[in-house]
C-alpha cells in the first residue's frame, strides 16, 4: 500500500488532471456561453501540436514561444468560425436543444474536414518533437521537465480563467451570459462581443493545450479525437457550463485514473474511467456539480 502514498503517483495524477481540466475548460467556455458542442476541440489541439512541431523542426522555434503563436492562431480560427458559421446559427435557431444538436453536427463536419486536410497536408505518419525531456528528482519524486511545465501552465491558465471571470468586466459578462442569457442582454451585456470573446478564448486554450501535448505525445492528424472525448467526459461530469465544476472534474478524473488503477489493475483503466462517467450520469443526470446553471 505504500505505493499508494508515493509522490510519484500524486504527480502523475496532478499532471493528467491538469490536462483534463485545461481541455475541458476551453470546451466549457464555448458551451456555457452559447450552448455549442464543439466536437472539433481535439482537432484544434492537433493543429496546435503541428504548429509547435513545424516551428521547431523548420525554424528551430522553442515550443514555449509556440504556445503563444498557437493560441493566437487558434483564436483567429475561432473568430473565423464564429463569424462564418455560428453567429447566424445562434441567432436563428429556436429551442436550445436544436442549437445543441446542430452545433454538434457542424463541429463534427468541421472536425472531419480539418483532420483529413491535415492528413493530406502533413501525411498520416506520426511525428514527435522531444522537448524539455530532462528529468528532475525531488526527494523520491522524479519529474520530466515537460510534464512539470504542462502542470504549471495548465494550472496557471485554469486559475487565470477563474480570476478573469470574477475580476474582469468581460469575464463577468461571460459569466452573466452563462447564468442567464436573456437577463444578461437586458442589463446591457454586448452579447455578440462576449460570444466572440468566448469563442476565441475557448479555441485559444485548445491550441495552447495542443502545444503542451506536442512535447509529450506523438503528433498525427487523428490525435485529437481521444482528447475531444476526454474533454466531453470532463465537462459533463462537472456539469455543462459550470467552469469551476469542470476544473474539479478534470482533476477528479485524473485521480480516479491513477488511483483506481492502483487499487485494481492497470488493465481496468478504461473500464473504470468510463464506468465512473456512466455511473455519475445515471445517478446525477445533470453531472456531478451540475443542476443549477451557476458559475462560482
Amino acid at each position: 500500500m505504500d505505493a499508494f502514498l508515493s509522490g510519484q503517483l500524486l504527480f502523475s495524477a496532478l499532471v493528467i488532471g491538469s490536462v483534463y481540466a485545461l481541455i475541458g475548460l476551453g470546451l466549457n467556455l464555448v458551451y456555457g456561453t452559447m450552448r455549442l458542442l464543439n466536437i472539433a476541440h481535439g482537432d484544434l489541439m492537433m493543429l496546435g501540436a503541428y504548429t509547435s512541431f513545424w516551428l521547431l523542426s523548420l525554424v528551430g522555434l522553442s515550443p514555449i514561444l509556440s504556445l503563444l503563436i498557437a493560441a493566437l492562431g487558434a483564436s483567429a480560427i475561432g473568430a473565423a468560425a464564429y463569424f462564418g458559421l455560428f453567429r447566424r446559427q445562434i441567432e436563428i435557431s429556436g429551442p436550445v436543444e436544436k442549437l445543441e444538436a446542430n452545433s454538434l453536427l457542424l463541429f463534427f463536419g468541421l472536425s472531419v474536414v480539418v483532420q483529413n486536410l491535415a492528413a493530406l497536408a502533413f501525411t498520416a505518419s506520426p511525428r514527435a518533437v522531444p522537448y524539455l525531456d530532462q528529468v528532475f528528482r525531488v526527494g523520491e519524486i522524479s519529474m520530466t521537465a515537460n510534464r512539470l511545465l504542462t502542470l504549471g501552465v495548465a494550472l496557471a491558465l485554469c486559475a487565470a480563467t477563474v480570476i478573469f471571470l470574477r475580476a474582469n468586466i468581460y469575464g463577468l459578462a461571460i459569466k452573466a451570459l452563462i447564468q442567464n442569457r436573456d437577463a444578461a442582454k437586458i442589463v446591457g451585456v454586448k452579447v455578440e462581443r462576449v460570444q466572440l470573446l468566448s469563442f476565441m478564448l475557448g479555441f485559444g486554450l485548445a491550441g495552447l493545450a495542443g502545444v503542451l501535448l506536442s512535447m509529450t505525445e506523438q503528433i498525427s492528424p487523428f490525435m485529437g479525437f481521444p482528447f475531444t472525448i476526454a474533454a466531453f467526459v470532463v465537462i459533463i461530469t462537472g456539469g455543462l457550463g459550470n467552469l469551476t465544476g469542470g476544473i474539479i472534474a478534470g482533476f477528479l478524473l485524473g485521480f480516479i485514473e491513477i488511483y483506481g488503477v492502483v487499487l485494481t489493475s492497470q488493465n481496468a483503466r478504461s473500464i473504470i474511467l468510463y464506468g465512473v462517467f456512466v455511473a455519475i450520469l445515471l445517478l446525477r443526470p445533470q453531472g456531478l456539480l451540475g443542476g443549477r446553471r451557476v458559475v462560482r
Partner: protein
Amino acid sequence: MTAAPTTTAPGVTGTWRFPVATLAAGLFAIAVPQVVGSYYVSVALTLCMWIALTQSWTILSGMAGYISLGHVVFYGLGGYVSVVTWQLLPLWVAIPLAGLAAGLFAAIIGAPVLRVRGPYFVILTFGIAELVKYIVINVEATIAQAGRLMFGTPPVTILFYVMLGLAVGATLLAWSVRRSRLGAGLIAIREDEPAAETIGVPVVRYKTYAYILSAVIPGMVGAVMGLRLTYVEVLQLFNPIISFTIVTMAIIGGSDDARGPVLGAGFLLVLSELLWSSLPQLYMVALGTLLVCFVLFAPNGIVGLLARRGGGRR
C-alpha cells in the same frame, strides 16, 4: 444497386404507397446478385447495412429527439454474438439471438439512461459504447482469445439477402412506428417532454420501447457484418465511426421521414464510390463539408429539399 424506393413526389405518407414501394424495391433488389459482379453485391450489402442502421436509429433519435452517438454498441454486441457462436449455432438462430441480445441490453439500460437528456444523453451513449467495448476486449483477453479466425463464413450473396431483409424490415418498422400511437407519443416527447407527460403520454415506457426497437435490428446487422470478417478484432466491431456515420446519414437524408435514411445512405454511398477510389481523404473532406452545408441550408435533409421542390410541406 437497390433503387431508392420513392424519389417521387412527396405526400405519400398517409397512404400505403410507401410500404408497397419498399417491398417492391426489396423484391426487385433480390435480383441484384444475378445482375452484377460480387464487388457490387458487397456495395449493395453495405447500402442495406446503412439503411437498416439509420432507419433503426431514427426510431429513437429522430422521433423522440434523443440523439444516440453510441448506436455501435448494439451493432458490436450483435457482431460479437454471431462471431462467438459461429460454427456452434446455425445462422438462423445466431442472427435473431444477436438481435435479442441487443434488444435485451437496451431494455436493461433503457430506463436509467433515458432519464438523461440533451447533450448529456449524446455523450452518455457514446460513453456506454466505449465502456462495453473495453469490457468485451477484456473478456477476450481473459479467455486468451487473441483475435478470432473465421473460416467458412457464408458467401456474400447469402449475407446480402439477410441484410436486404433487415433493411426492408427496418424501413417498414420505422414507417409503422411513425404512424402508430407510439410514434405520436415519441414526437410529442421530442417537442416538449414535460407537456407530453402532462397530457398523459407514458413517457418512460414509450422512450424505452423506442430504445429497444432501435436496438434490435442494429444487433442483427452487426451479426451479419461480423460474418464478413475473416479475422475478428473486437476493436473493429465497436468502431465509433459507425455511430457517427449513422448520425451523418440520418441528417443528410432527413430523419423525419422514413425515406430520409434511404436517401441519405444511398447518397453518401454513391458519393463515396465516386470519390473514394481516387481521393480517399478528399472524400472525407467532401463528407464533412456536405454535413456542414446540410445543417446550415437544408436542416431537413434531402427529404426536406425534395419536399420544398415539390412545393409545400406535408
